[in-house]
């Protein structure tokens, strides 16, 4: 048994068909597994800390309420809409990509994505400032402030990096668009867009988790 696999001579495996992933895509997916563990660490820590607070002390007395209420408060609405915006940015991105694959430039899709990303970051920044005015910051209300700002901060940083990448895709789309006008063949490599897409969708999925545990639960 233990000999069979290494003792077989001669046969050379042939890879059949079109590869599912390019090298870069494969690498990106593996890398995202690592990113997922980063957030898993943060989220796991949050869960441990919050359970340890004991029942009834969440949020701590006097702290601004960020959890979703029925009926939703103004802040709730803002973040719900912000969430919808971020999630739709995945759709617009996907749309841009599919236009691009069909030979278009995908410019509108990418621009919309960039716009949505920017709005998300802006609203997030507004929320931070708003909470800060209400007296909640990294160092207030014990771990309530610590967790909220650290986790949304880490995520925001990722969104920001993704946003930068999307600006590049926009620029590339502009180039492609110009070539379209001038009648030349579009840039055949979509690698950058594909990788950015993976990353951007990942960041969105992370937000679903963060939104659920920070705001809803």
């Amino acid at each position: 048994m233990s000999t069979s696999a290494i003792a077989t001579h001669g046969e050379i495996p042939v890879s059949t068909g079109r590869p599912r992933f390019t090298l870069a895509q494969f690498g990106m997916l593996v890398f995202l597994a690592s990113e997922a563990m980063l957030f898993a660490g943060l989220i796991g820590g949050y869960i441990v800390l919050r359970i340890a607070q004991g029942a009834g002390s969440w949020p701590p007395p006097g702290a601004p309420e960020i959890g979703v209420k029925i009926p939703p408060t103004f802040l709730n609405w803002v973040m719900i809409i912000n969430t919808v915006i971020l999630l739709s940015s995945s759709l617009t991105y996907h749309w841009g990509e599919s236009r691009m694959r069909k030979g278009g430039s995908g410019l509108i899709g990418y621009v919309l994505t960039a716009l949505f990303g920017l709005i998300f970051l802006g609203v997030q920044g507004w929320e931070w400032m708003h909470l800060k005015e209400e007296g909640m910051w990294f160092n207030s209300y014990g771990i309530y402030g610590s967790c909220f700002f650290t986790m949304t901060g880490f995520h925001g940083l990722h969104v920001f990096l993704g946003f930068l990448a999307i600006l590049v895709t926009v620029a590339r789309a502009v180039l492609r668009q110009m070539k379209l006008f001038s009648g030349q063949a579009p840039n055949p490599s979509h690698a950058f867009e594909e990788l950015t897409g993976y990353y951007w969708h990942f960041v969105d999925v992370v937000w679903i988790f963060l939104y659920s545990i920070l705001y809803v639960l």
Partner: protein
Amino acid sequence: MLNLIRHRTLFFLGMGMGLLSTAHAEIRQTSVWWLPRNVTMFGHEIDFIFYVILILTGVTAVAVFSVMIYFIVKYRARPGVTAVHSHGNNTLEVIWTGIPVFIFLALAIYGNEQWTQMRLKTPPADALPVAVIGEQFGWNVRYPGADGKLAKMTASSVTKENPFGVDAADPAGLDDFTTYGELVFPVDRPIRLYLGSKDVIHAFYVPEFRLYQDMVPGRIYDFVWLKAEQTGQFQLACNQLCGQGHYKMFGKLSVVPQGEYETWAKGKAPQPTAAKETSTVPVVMADR
């Protein structure tokens, strides 16, 4: 049955260890080899498992190293002799996977049984409660007075002024007395420890007690208990890195006959403690 195993174990061990193990009963200063003497009840169990594993690993080590040396000598390269061509053997593979699985699981199960005895069972009701709260770099110790009960303590109430986090309203605490860095345990009586910390993690460690337990701020552990079976003077060591003074954060610990303990305790004035600061709201330690 267990005793039989234990005796046999110790017998073989005695043969193997020769002089080393006889040094046990001596006071530490005279013996630099092997374990210090054990003075607690659970120490026997711990030492027993220790010796079981020692024999197991010892025998395995001798076997593995003998085989290795034998192979090294026997199969050294010699002109004209070629190596055997073998990719392995599944029967062997199964055997040497199966046996360790069996041994290790047996060890884990037996060990955990003892662990359950030591840590998961509630300490005896007549145990003498003693609270030890570490701080950089010393020990706050609290003993019950005549009522044999300590004041109610909450970890979240521990402050600089109220190191034990006691509840001032609790009448049980009125006759408690405290010491700093000095512990006296009556021999042959169960002692239940309440372990906590004011600042960073410290640890309660006495090698002769075969006892180590971290003392974590924000919590008061009440599951450690022990029974010392011999009298003597010991040093309580902080064995969790706690800052620059860590290396000399020791305490005085003596195990004395019951009568002597009572005399000692009587000589101590009750200190209900500066309990006035206590409040029900968790006290936020100022950013130190």
